[in-house]
């Protein structure tokens, strides 16, 4: 490790818990305190509770469907209501439960597991949560107003297009999807940067807990998969609301483009849900066997391989669309071969359990049942990867059975095990074992009763997505059995809720580490304090709590009076620099609300984009605007104001005196060695800065969006008879070329400003940013004028739609970069300029180059494509 390893008298360095508490705890109470919270644990719990609420709602919808299908010709639900219910059920479980619950658990556990005090971007985590909650609220409010989407969670066009689905139901669905995907993307980038840059010293890549690996792989998958569905749903909304033709066959669009976009997200989505469960399995197995897991490198490799290969199987959802067999067969091969990493994981887990003295807790039961249940889902998955079998059982209940065995078996079983395992960490109390046994067995039996008969129903030919079926077709008894199973499953979920509620209040006290586990989250109190660790740990093995010697150094030198954390290097987690994390604020809520206004109002009028855009932009400016930190702003008011009442002040004083006594006791004990990081710088440039990684994540998302749009452009171009239907005028080519030239030239002043940031030259930064902003604004003005003079609009034909969409998307990036530069200029003129602003300028320059590069690419696609070249 590069930081200084030393041993000094304790009184100079002992972390002061009272001051840590003052730095990390939200000082504000009430509603404002609730909405300004940025602690990862609080937000993680909110994610989990919200996801649980959606899980119950989705479960009730499933129960309603099963009651409807219990007997033939039932009239409990009308056809229309059934369509709304099954669409809302699918959308809820996929978008509002499965992904958020995994991400929420990661948000709570990962920072603790890697030994840090919060996520890299705490305010972004708050924004993610509010966006997610608002997206879910939008879906359910519309459902209760009889405006619930009714075209399935996949919303195939043309069924969901403007011709076959009039009204606002599909618009609500499309906007909800974009909304929740923004949330997932923001959280994924946050988790990647946290794992990359905030690991405890010594926690190198080969020592990272397998759950952390799983969340890392999941986050990368989200970054590259979710832009596809967000883009698709935006295009669908545009087709419906402003008359574009992306999916309109008559005007050069293609309905299969939707399926490609949707399933390019949809299949990785399965792994986005499954991969964290894999991490949980490994964690729980280590805890149950109390020994090292078999084949750690193989398990990591398999998780990463699953992440990669998951992107190469999307076409197996489209086997029935008439795609040539050779094309399909490549995807069959990949779908079959993805069993290699999954099989490797299975064998590693079995080898880990083999011969071990297994401790049987409730979560152990979930581990063992996972093997049986997920195995069945995996086997039917391999069957469905074969084109002939897929064509036979396509759109039957066999597929419903398969996907539930994979998703519930592969994700919900480990998740419930994870809930039993980490519940003591959340609450400090154990879940009731007796109730847990009842809950587990009813869940296991109920699940198999519901879904196993569906295999047989599918093989007998019962189609899925039907609200009823005629009698005398051989479907009755199996359907009735499945409905009885659904009732058992409902009882099980009820038992789980009761157990959670009761145990959180009156459960047996767990102590700090009830399972004698090996990972760092159990190395602090349960539940953890707002600052997670009084003394941030260092790590020297894969099982830090098992191998921790008394001589294990702790991190010293971080400021207690500020929310400061250590930033480490990516591969070896060597200490690199310190950074201060932002404190509680309401801005993430305002930004989420602004975005909400944009998406909701846009359902009714395109002006919603403008109104919401302005609101969001204003809130973002407020978010970024340099000001006195929240807590320092409040500090002088505290004695006079009612924000901290006298009882609380007394409690804090009492706690402080207890802590002082504890510190005095500690002074008497021999001092452990520590890793001094106080001499490290407080900011760093380039890839050493977390912000650089955050912006890189943003660029990865946007690159995926641009790449998908460009692939979509060539996909439609290859299928169109005349492309472009309206020729591009030469004058527009020259206008656009001049605009792009302006953008390219702007790189020079931007480079000057970046160099100025590195050298600390205020003058260079001001001049560089001013000139590049001016050139950026010229680009924007020229392109705006060029678009106004085009002989076609977005609603003329598919080429027009793509032309305007690509141009508009890039122009919005240009505008954002200009606004960002203006903000930085404000800071540079107004002051005070801090070191972090220099990093902002450098990272802003990095993003500017991305905007320039994407502008050149977009120009090349739109104007230099031989079919569209205007000369």
């Amino acid at each position: 490790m590069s930081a200084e390893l030393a041993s000094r008298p304790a009184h100079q360095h002992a972390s002061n818990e009272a001051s840590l508490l003052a730095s990390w705890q939200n000082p504000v109470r009430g509603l404002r305190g609730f909405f300004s919270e940025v602690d990862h644990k609080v937000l993680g719990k909110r994610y989990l509770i919200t996801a649980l609420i959606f899980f119950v709602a989705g479960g009730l919808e499933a129960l309603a469907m099963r009651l409807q299908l219990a007997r033939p010709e039932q009239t409990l639900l009308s056809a229309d209501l059934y369509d709304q219910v099954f669409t809302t059920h699918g959308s809820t479980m996929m978008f509002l439960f499965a992904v958020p619950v995994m991400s929420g658990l990661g948000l709570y556990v990962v920072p603790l597991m890697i030994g840090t005090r919060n996520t890299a971007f705490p305010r972004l985590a708050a924004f993610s949560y509010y966006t997610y909650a608002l997206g879910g609220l939008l879906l359910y409010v519309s459902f209760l107003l009889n405006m619930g989407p009714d075209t399935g969670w996949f919303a195939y066009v043309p069924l969901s297009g403007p011709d076959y689905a009039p009204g606002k139901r599909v618009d609500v669905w499309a906007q909800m999807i974009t909304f929740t995907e923004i949330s997932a993307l923001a959280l994924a980038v946050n988790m990647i940067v946290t794992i990359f840059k905030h690991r405890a010293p010594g926690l190198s890549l080969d020592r990272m807990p397998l759950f952390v690996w799983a969340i890392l792989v999941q986050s990368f998958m989200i970054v590259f998969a979710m832009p596809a569905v967000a883009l698709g749903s935006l295009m669908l909304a545009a087709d419906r609301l402003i008359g574009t033709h992306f999916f309109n066959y008559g005007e050069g669009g293609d309905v299969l483009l939707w399926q490609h976009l949707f399933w390019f997200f949809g299949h990785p989505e399965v792994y986005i849900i499954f991969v964290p469960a894999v991490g949980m399995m490994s964690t729980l197995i280590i805890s149950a066997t109390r020994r090292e897991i078999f084949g750690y490198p193989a398990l990591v490799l398999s998780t990463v391989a699953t992440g990669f290969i998951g992107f190469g199987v999307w076409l197996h959802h489209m086997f029935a669309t008439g795609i040539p067999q050779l094309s399909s067969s490549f995807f069959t091969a990949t779908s079959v071969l993805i069993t290699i990493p999954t099989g490797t994981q299975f064998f590693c887990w079995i080898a880990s359990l083999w011969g071990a003295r297994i401790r049987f807790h409730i979560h152990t039961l979930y581990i063992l049942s996972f093997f049986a249940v997920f195995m069945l889902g995996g086997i039917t998955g391999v069957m469905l990867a074969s084109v002939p079998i897929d064509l036979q059982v396509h759109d039957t209940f066999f597929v419903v059975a398969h996907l539930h065995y994979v998703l519930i078996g592969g994700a919900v079983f480990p998740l419930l095990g994870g809930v039993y395992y980490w519940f003591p960490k959340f609450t400090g109390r154990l879940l009731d074992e007796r109730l847990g046994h009842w809950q587990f067995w009813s869940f296991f039996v109920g699940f198999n009763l519901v879904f196993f008969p569906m295999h047989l129903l599918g093989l007998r030919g019962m189609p899925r997505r039907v609200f009823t079926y005629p009698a005398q077709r051989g479907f009755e008894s199996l359907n009735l059995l499945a409905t009885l199973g659904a009732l058992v499953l409902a009882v099980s979920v009820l038992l789980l809720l009761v157990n959670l509620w009761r145990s959180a209040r009156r459960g047996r006290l767990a102590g700090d580490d009830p399972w004698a586990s090996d990972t760092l989250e159990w190395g602090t109190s349960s539940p953890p304090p707002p600052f997670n660790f009084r003394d941030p740990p260092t790590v020297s093995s894969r099982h830090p709590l098992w191998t921790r010697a008394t001589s294990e150094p702790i991190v010293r030198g971080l400021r207690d009076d500020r929310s400061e954390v250590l930033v480490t290097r990516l591969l070896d987690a060597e200490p690199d620099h310190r950074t201060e994390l932002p404190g509680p604020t309401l801005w993430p809520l305002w930004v989420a609300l602004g975005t909400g206004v944009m998406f909701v109002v846009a359902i009714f009028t395109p002006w919603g984009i403008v109104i919401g855009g302005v609101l969001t932009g204003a809130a973002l400016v407020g978010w970024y605007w340099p000001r006195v930190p929240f807590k320092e702003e409040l500090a002088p008011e505290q004695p006079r104001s009612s924000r901290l009442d006298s009882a609380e002040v007394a409690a804090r004083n009492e706690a402080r005196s207890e802590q002082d006594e504890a510190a005095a006791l500690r002074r008497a004990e021999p001092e452990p060695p520590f890793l001094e990081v106080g001499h490290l710088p407080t900011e760093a440039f380039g890839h050493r800065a977390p912000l650089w990684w955050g912006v890189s994540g943003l660029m990865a998302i946007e690159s995926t969006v641009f790449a998908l749009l460009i692939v979509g452009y060539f996909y439609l171009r290859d299928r169109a008879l005349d492309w472009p239907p309206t020729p591009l005028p030469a004058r527009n080519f020259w206008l656009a070329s001049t605009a792009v030239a302006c953008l390219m030239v702007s790189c020079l002043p931007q480079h000057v400003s970046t160099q100025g940031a590195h050298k600390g030259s205020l003058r260079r930064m001001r001049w560089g940013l001013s000139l590049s902003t001016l050139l950026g604004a010229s680009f924007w003005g020229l392109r705006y004028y060029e678009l106004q003079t085009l002989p076609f609009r977005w609603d003329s034909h598919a080429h027009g739609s793509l032309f305007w969409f690509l141009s508009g998307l890039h122009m919005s990036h240009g505008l954002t970069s200009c606004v960002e530069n203006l903000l930085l200029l404000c800071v540079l003129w107004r002051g005070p300029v801090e070191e972090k602003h220099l990093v902002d300028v450098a990272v802003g320059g990095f993003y500017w180059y991305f905007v320039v590069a994407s502008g050149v690419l977009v120009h090349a696609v739109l104007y230099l494509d031989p079919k569209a070249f205007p000369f």
Partner: protein
Amino acid sequence: MPTPPVSDARTPSARRDLWLSALVCLGPLLWFASLGALYALSTHECGTQVPTRSWLLWSLASAACALVTLLSWRERRHAAGQAPDTSATKAKRVRFMQEAALGLNALCLVLLLGFVVPLLGLRPCD
């Protein structure tokens, strides 16, 4: 005006780490690019019913992936002698990444070789 923060000058080991990280991703990226290209090509070759371009692409991708796998293997084999000054912790991490690169690239090579079955058995527009 504050003093400039620390610079981000790269050390030789950072360059080596970059190469190792690239090696981990090369095989999967090659496989994914060839999968997308083979999918697009097979539709285009409907007219001729002879998948010449698909075969060519497959051969190139497989050869490139084999090369990357070979490089990963060499990297792992020569690991011990290359950086004698590295700490034990770093050496273990480097070895871990070398194993990951070898494993992932070999798996992608298997995936690519698996494509030979449909190429041999099917015509583009069957």
